[in-house]
């Protein structure tokens, strides 16, 4: 194993151990946010980073998952696991319906607008559908899962539960990305017309990965709901729309491990700028513009180029 890979693994293990070692709920909170960023980044990378389709419904899937978990926990008495599964299923289903319309009809800029329009529509619905979502007041009282062991205080236990979930998601996405399917997806970003001409049904690949990414975002939303214990229409708004975008762009489109690293790195922003979400939004907005104009290949791309040129 190469030195840098060993170092990366050791660092990861250390990073995972830290919240347990520090032992405060605060440390657990930071860890949980980092995990959520990682889950969002990895799943968004699967659709946008690899195929190049700007599917801005990621926040919609995230929000759907959050609301499903919220309603399941507070109205239907569901447990944590059922919440997660239901969130993933419903988000995936909505993704399927959206994908069937969008992938058959549009690509590029109109595709982005159609998906963004859907997300904002969700926001409008969540903001006004009082009997179900309670509008801007949101749904509160979502409890932490009772299966957590009592060893760790506060959010730390929830963090380690999240590590299991995140690990599973990373494994799944890694499996897809490194398989032949992954090569087709990357090909779609490079030259979809050529793949079509070679007889590959790109529509099917796009739809499948999109449903998967949506389902994973839904599961992430459920995890988020149980962490925050409150869900409001904000989950559908620009904050959660921009974050996966920033993560994937800063890391470099399609750069699997860089996405994880950048996600963890960026997750300190909500912590340090906790005072004002507006400052966070400002930072993320500026970061997005800067990265797109100045470093279009992202950090991962820059690193890879550097590695190549050093050989």
């Amino acid at each position, binding site marked *: 194993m190469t030195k840098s890979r060993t170092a990366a693994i050791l660092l990861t293990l250390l990073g995972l151990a830290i919240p347990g070692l520090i032992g405060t709920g605060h440390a657990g909170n930071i860890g949980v946010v980092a995990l959520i960023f990682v889950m969002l980044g990895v799943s968004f990378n699967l659709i946008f980073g690899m195929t190049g389709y700007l599917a801005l419904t990621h926040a919609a899937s995230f929000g759907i998952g959050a609301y499903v978990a919220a309603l399941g926990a507070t109205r239907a008495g569901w447990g944590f696991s059922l919440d997660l599964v239901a969130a993933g299923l419903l988000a995936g289903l909505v993704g399927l319906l959206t994908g069937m319309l969008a992938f058959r009809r549009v690509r590029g800029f109109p595709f982005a*607008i159609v998906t963004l329009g859907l997300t904002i529509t969700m926001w409008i*619905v969540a903001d006004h559908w009082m009997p179900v979502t309670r509008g801007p007041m949101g749904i509160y009282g979502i409890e932490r899962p009772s299966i957590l062991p009592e060893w760790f205080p506060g959010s730390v236990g929830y963090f380690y539960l999240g590590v299991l979930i995140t690990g599973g998601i990373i494994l799944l996405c890694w499996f897809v990305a490194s398989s032949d399917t992954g090569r087709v997806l990357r090909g779609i970003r490079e030259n979809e017309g050529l793949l079509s001409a070679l007889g590959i049904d790109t529509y099917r690949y796009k739809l499948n990965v999109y449903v998967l990414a949506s389902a994973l975002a839904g599961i992430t939303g459920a995890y988020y709901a149980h962490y925050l214990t409150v869900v409001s229409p904000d989950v559908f708004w620009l904050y959660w729309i921009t974050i996966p975008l920033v993560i994937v762009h800063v890391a470099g489109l399609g750069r699997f491990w860089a996405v994880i690293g950048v996600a963890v790195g960026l997750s300190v922003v909500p912590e340090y700028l906790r005072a004002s979400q507006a400052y966070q939004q400002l930072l993320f907005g500026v970061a997005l513009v800067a990265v797109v104009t100045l470093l279009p290949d992202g950090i991962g791309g820059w690193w890879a180029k550097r590695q190549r040129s050093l050989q």
Partner: protein
Amino acid sequence: MIELTQQIVNGLSLGSIYALIAVGLTLIFGIARVGNFAHGDYMMVAAYAFILMLADYAVALPLAIVGAVLIGGALAFVSERAVFRRLYTAPGTTSFTAALGLSTAIQAAVIVALSGSPRQLTSEWTFSVLEFGPIRLSGHRAMAIGGSIAALAALGAFLKAGKFGKAIRAVAQQVEAAQMVGIPIGRIRLITMVLTGLLAGWAAVLIAPIFGAMPVMGVLLTLKGMAIVITGGLGSIGGALVGAYVLGVSEALVAGYVSQDYQHALAFLLLAGVLLVRPGGIFGEGTVAMELRR
């Protein structure tokens, strides 16, 4: 019947605002293949500036109007020079992503600078209500219709007659050919963007007395504007105009007869519906692939 007419009249004023935004967006798209998501935010900043100038700084009305319009143009100028100019040759949706980031940043900056509070113009600025029989039209809504038509007519004349107008149309139709005959496309793109920024500033002046200003108003307007532009056909000014008024009137009807809450979602439902039938938009090509050029 009267109720219906009233709603339609309201819808026309709404459509007039949408028209200003949509025409600006489709113009930029035709010229530079840029989906400028920050366009509505130029308008939002100009609206805040307009209200602040009138209410807080006691600026004379004509000066405030000119100021707001110029602010819209200035924001567009800076955006083009700093951001979009580098992205004309970037693939696909890159410029749109940058615009999204820009929009987010502008909104956040406004929230930080002004503590995010929405602003309204006080009643001393309210004009009297016009009455045509039983139909009531607030002076501001009438001005919105009139002001929008005037601005769009001026724009149309400019595009048809002047040298710049011809150059803009040439670049929109065939960039390479325009380059070959010596049209400076960089400058044309900058001028067009500033023009649409001025248009956005004018829209702010018209809309501020009716709806006030708040940080998120730009996003909703831009998104609806883009839905209109795609539905009408990317790059088609006529499509944008028709789509804008259709949406305006439809929204007013939905707000009046169905539900006031969900009217904003109408634009996206219409978009989805149209795309199901004609992927290129009503006035665009009827084919599937709306590929952005590299």
